[in-house]
């Protein structure tokens, strides 16, 4: 069936045509990795460590291997000679400790869920049954779960390293921080805890590998955000030449950073298919996913801010302890470093020092989760701005207003060394306050306090910015990152004037097929429906750096526009030839090439496309081809910003916080598709609010993940979230499309807005902070603690 639209004029930049992606998703005609079937396809099931830390004494696979329908059982040792360690692409310091990380553990397991063997069987039930029959003898070792315990090095996660500290990263910038603090009127210091989060895309990880070992050809389907990076890394790990590996990201059911990874299971899929010469498939269960898909956040943040009595900010000190988990995965050590640049946020100050210690624990590795380092930074600075306002007895909005970069001061070089290109914090804040009814809510808050109501009201503010659009390649080089940050696009013109856009971005819910069609249709002056967007397959799109870090539009979208402009330039040359006019005399508008001054002498884009195809008549100095290809490497990051205001009612008798009103005004620059942008904001808000109120990965002292299923880990459902009031201001970014990233903005901004509101509601009861997630119990305990004058 065809989804038909009656929106002939829609489909240009700024319009909101409904998404091209939807038709197959709403009808179930999907291509998730687990849907892939092939003759003789086998299913894998992993045997995983039930312990956080143990030496493997022995593995007996004989009974499993002898089970009906089981084709093979492999252990880590079976592949030890066929693969290198899983990669870490970001050595953040020269002396960073990088432990070996085999795709399957060989002699030691270091977190619950570490794989030790894989069963390959005819179907998923047989594989799961046989996995139960693999007998592993473990010699238990002590777990180390708490970050500060880990720093003491009493229990080592990796004996051979001699320490649990992976790295110490220090970035002092601007004036001398210690001198600045010594001279300050006011210094406020706080410790905030960023709890671990489970990213939980609705589609768990899955792989399907089709292999012809005889020919040396391998195709790996994976539910990944990064097919291009994965191909390169699989080649590096296995030694299979890069050109012999094809990676396909078919329909991918969400990622949020968790599928920006090179997972051991992906490597094992390839190696098993090579060993057996048969197609193999693997799909994790949700509980397996919680143990083994990388986690997000996990930091202790000590933050100190210095100001004058009048509220002028002077300096900022940040000391982090960041939980790496058991191994360094693709970007693990770099996540807190992405935050390093964002603690000064939108504020002017002269001195800044960021320190971070990355530490190993016997837990699942951490890595990128929506925002990746920047939500943590934004939380800490926006929380401590409220604490400073309290110390100075100022309105927290006024404190922000007197310290933020004013719109006429852009471009502005921050104390952290970034140059913010554009922004207008005043406009976004004014609009947010208007939508929120700030003054009325403050009045109501005062009345409730005066009456001593059981349900108190709090207002939370977050005036955030973030760096995204990852990333300028030279900057990444300076930060020792193992890759560039460019993006590629190709526009192919077919004989009929229809167009195929090949993009290196790899969408998994973001709507690139729709938005990219709008960019191509606008640039080429052709119907939105005439554009087809191809992505997520290294055989179709050989060049790309994939989708993460709110980079796709701000980098890939600009690459696409450049490629389309190259098509226009070629087509213009051919049109001029056909019209017997000079190229300079050709106008191009709405898909038609015409001779200046004689508009009837014209060729449509489609006519020019056909002329290029038949090639009967074209200039001698060009090839009969209109293809445009571009690689765009940005010169700067993109800096979306916004003001988020949250009103929370706290029942002081039960501790239960309820969001009463949530307003956000985001500035993401020029908007290609407002419906998609709004959807991204909604989803981002949901995840940021979830960190504030609901989610937290909990480990017990032995390193068991207590929140191991979706019953125990609270991903919010529809009744758990409020209706959001959203609006935008538009301050175009300093790039060709004027666009900024949007994918992470809502998540980065919303968490501190919610927690600030909760603290604001009960601050008069002696509460200074509530640790996340702010469950009713935690809020209630904070109130009791406050009422007792701080005594436990």
């Amino acid at each position, binding site marked *: *069936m*065809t*989804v038909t639209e009656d929106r002939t004029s829609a489909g240009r930049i700024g319009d909101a045509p*409904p*998404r091209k*992606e*939807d*038709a197959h*998703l*709403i*009808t*179930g*005609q*999907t291509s*998730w990795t*687990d*849907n892939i*079937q092939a003759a003789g396809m086998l299913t894998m099931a992993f045997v995983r460590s039930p312990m956080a830390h143990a030496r493997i004494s022995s593995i007996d696979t004989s009974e499993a291997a002898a089970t009906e329908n089981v084709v093979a059982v492999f252990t880590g040792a079976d592949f030890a000679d066929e693969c290198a360690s899983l990669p870490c692409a970001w050595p953040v310091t020269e002396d960073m400790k990088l432990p070996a990380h085999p795709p399957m553990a060989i002699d030691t397991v270091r977190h619950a869920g570490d794989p030790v063997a894989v069963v390959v069987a005819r*179907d*998923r*039930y047989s594989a799961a049954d046989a996995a139960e029959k693999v007998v592993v003898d473990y010699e238990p070792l002590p777990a180390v779960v708490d970050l500060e315990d880990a720093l003491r090095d009493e229990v080592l996660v990796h004996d051979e390293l001699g320490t649990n500290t992976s790295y110490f990263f220090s970035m002092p910038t601007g004036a001398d921080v210690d001198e600045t603090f010594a001279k300050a009127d006011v210094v406020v210091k706080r410790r905030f805890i960023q709890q671990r989060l489970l990213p*939980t*895309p*609705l*589609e*768990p990880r899955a792989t399907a590998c089709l292999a012809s070992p005889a020919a040396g050809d391998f195709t790996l389907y994976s539910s990944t955000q990064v097919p291009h990076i994965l191909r390169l890394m699989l080649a590096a790990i296995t030694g299979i030449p890069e050109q012999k590996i094809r990676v396909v990201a078919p*329909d*991918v*059911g*969400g990622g*949020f950073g968790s599928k920006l990874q090179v997972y051991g299971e992906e490597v094992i899929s390839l190696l098993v298919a090579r060993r057996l010469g048969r197609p193999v498939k693997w*799909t994790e*269960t*949700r*509980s397996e996913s919680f143990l083994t898909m990388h986690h997000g956040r996990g930091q202790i943040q000590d933050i100190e801010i210095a100001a004058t009595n009048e509220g002028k900010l002077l300096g900022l000190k940040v000391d982090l302890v960041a939980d790496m988990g058991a191994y360094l995965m693709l970007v693990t050590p770099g996540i807190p470093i992405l935050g390093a640049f964002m603690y000064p946020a939108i504020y002017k100050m002269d001195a800044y020092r960021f320190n971070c210690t990355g530490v190993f624990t016997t837990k699942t590795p951490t890595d990128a989760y929506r925002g990746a380092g920047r939500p943590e930074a934004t939380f800490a600075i926006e929380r401590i701005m409220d604490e400073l306002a309290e110390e100075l007895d100022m309105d927290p909005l006024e404190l922000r207003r007197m310290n933020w970069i004013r719109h006429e001061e852009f471009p502005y070089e921050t104390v952290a060394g970034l140059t913010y290109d554009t922004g207008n914090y005043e406009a976004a804040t004014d609009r947010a306050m208007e939508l929120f009814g700030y003054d009325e809510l403050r009045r109501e808050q005062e009345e409730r306090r005066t009456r001593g109501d059981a349900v108190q009201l709090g207002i939370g503010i977050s005036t955030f910015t973030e760096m995204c659009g990852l990333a300028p390649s030279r900057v990444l080089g300076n930060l020792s990152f193992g890759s560039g940050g460019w993006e590629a696009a190709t526009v192919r013109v077919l004989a009929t004037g229809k167009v195929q856009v090949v993009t290196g971005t790899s969408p*998994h*819910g*973001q*709507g690139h097929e729709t938005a990219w069609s709008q960019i191509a249709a606008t640039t080429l002056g052709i119907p939105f429906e005439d554009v087809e967007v191809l992505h997520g397959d290294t055989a179709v799109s050989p060049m790309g750096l994939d989708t993460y870090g709110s980079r796709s539009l701000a980098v890939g979208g600009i690459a696409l526009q450049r490629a389309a402009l190259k098509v226009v330039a070629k087509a213009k040359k051919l049109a001029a030839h056909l019209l017997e006019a000079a190229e300079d005399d050709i106008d191009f508008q709405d898909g038609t090439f015409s001779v200046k001054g004689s508009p009837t002498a014209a060729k449509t884009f489609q006519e020019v496309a056909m002329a290029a195809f038949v090639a009967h008549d074209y200039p001698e100095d060009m090839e009969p081809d209109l293809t445009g290809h571009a690689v765009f490497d940005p010169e700067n990051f993109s800096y979306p910003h916004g003001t988020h205001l949250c009103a929370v009612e706290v029942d002081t008798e039960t501790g239960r916080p309820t969001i009463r009103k949530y307003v956000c005004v985001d500035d993401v620059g020029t908007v290609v598709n407002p*419906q*998609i942008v*709004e*959807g*991204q904001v*909604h*989803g*981002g*808000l*949901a*995840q940021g609010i979830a960190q504030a109120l609901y989610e937290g990965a909990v480990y017990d002292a032995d390193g068991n993940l207590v929140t191991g*299923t*979706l*019953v125990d880990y609270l*991903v919010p*459902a*529809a*009744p758990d*979230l409020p*209706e*959001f009031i959203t609006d935008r201001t538009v301050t175009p970014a300093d790039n060709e499309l004027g666009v900024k990233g949007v994918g992470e903005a809502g998540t980065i901004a919303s968490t501190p807005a919610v927690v600030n509101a909760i603290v604001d509601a009960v601050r008069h009861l002696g509460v200074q902070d509530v640790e996340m997630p702010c469950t009713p119990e935690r809020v209630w305990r904070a109130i009791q603690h406050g009422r007792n004058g701080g005594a436990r």
Partner: protein
Amino acid sequence: MARITLTVDGTVYTDDVEPRTLLVHHLRDALGLTGTNVGCDTSSCGACTVHVDGLSVKSCTMLAVQADGREVLTIQGLAQDGRLHPLQQAFHDAHGLQCGYCTPGMIMASLDLLNHNADPTDDEVRHGLEGNLCRCTGYQNIVKAVRQAAVSIRQGEGATAPASEGVPA
């Protein structure tokens, strides 16, 4: 093995299944009806929601043998004569999906909701769908989609399909 006969999206299938086979695995692996997804192993997420004899069921929580002799409607049988069901159309129009993995279950749960309440409030939609998780949308556009579909259905723009009339799209 047990022999079962299911009517799925209007087609009658007879198969021998292991008694422990979950309905969703039977649909996906044996019948190749991969429109219905699996998102968890604790009946928490609702991605696998289908209808059995006209009522919504999490198909990871039912054995295939329990569906013997019954009529199953999946997302793949919801469109009629090449026309989208009003719920499918509304999810599209209101941008009620992003990655789309929760969508089949979300639409089937919404259909059950509307079968029991033709004109739900926002709050009733939110509570009616609390057994279905979406990680992308923040639910706001899902609520909007369900209410738009409710209006379409009440105005007769395509009747809600009984299970027996489902045809593969």
